[in-house]
């Protein structure tokens, strides 16, 4: 139990550091909500290394704390919706046992952006935000693929050297 809490804490801390690093880099693609999503690297990796409740908790802590630190209440709501959609779809796809980390990460990226824009359109009652859907989906695929490739590198190292460290 203490081990699980410690490892969960390490993952949450790492995700928050990534959020912080990303908040320092001025990424502007001209569309609100497009980010590299470095913190998702921790979530995608955690998909294979953590138990499901622990992973959900890590994702929740990461979004709430980094939202409060680097965003505002609205960006927090949008991130929560995006993070929940993304995590849910990735857990489901992983559960099927048919997909590799790459396409799981791509679907996670797309659904993160879908959840985010849906929440923003609903909260602000600005339906024209849905015009951003195609751009956000395309961006989610690209960032998801990048994160998937990096996650595969990290996971290979874990699987080869230190899997017993986690269990």
């Amino acid at each position: 139990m203490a081990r699980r809490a410690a490892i969960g804490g390490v993952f949450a801390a790492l995700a928050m550091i990534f959020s912080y690093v990303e908040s320092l880099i001025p990424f502007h693609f001209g569309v609100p909500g497009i980010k590299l999503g470095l913190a998702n690297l921790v979530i995608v990796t955690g998909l294979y290394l953590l138990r499901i409740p622990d992973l959900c908790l890590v994702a929740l802590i990461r979004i709430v704390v980094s939202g409060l630190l680097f965003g505002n209440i609205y960006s927090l709501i949008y991130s929560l919706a995006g993070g929940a959609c993304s995590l849910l779809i990735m857990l489901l796809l992983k559960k099927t046992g048919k997909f590799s980390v790459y396409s799981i990460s791509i679907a996670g990226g797309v659904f993160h952006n879908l959840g985010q824009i849906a929440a923003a359109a609903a909260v602000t009652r600005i339906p024209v935000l849905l015009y951003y859907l195609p751009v956000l989906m395309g961006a989610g695929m690209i960032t998801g693929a990048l994160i998937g490739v990096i996650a595969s590198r990290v996971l290979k190292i874990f699987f080869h050297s230190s899997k017993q460290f986690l269990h």
Partner: protein
Amino acid sequence: MKKRKEADPFRINRYDIILTAALAAAAVICVILFAGFHDTSEGAFVRITVDAEEYGIYELSQPVQIRIETDRGNNLIQIRDHQVTMLEADCPDGYCIRKGPISRIGDTIVCLPHRVVAEILSADGHADEFDVIAQ
């Protein structure tokens, strides 16, 4: 690892390709739905909406600056040369300013933090299919 039939997480398989193609197809369908059947000639009016309420409809032929001050923040929208530009906004991200001038039917400038939207309308007052949804 445990079960034999589980796919190798590091090898791209046919399910990956199907899933990725389906997502790409969904994005392309969105593009076609939103842009494909939609008049993109120069518009005649701009509708400004603040917090989901109509703020006003302005003619693109009449140069004017519209200052919008709300609890959320301030925006300055300019109409000039048949184009609409977000000149000033004290929102944290500034996407609305960087968007630049718009003039074609259905084009929008969205200042999400302030919930200010400028949307170009045609001469008969239509912008897009979301009009129907928004009613």
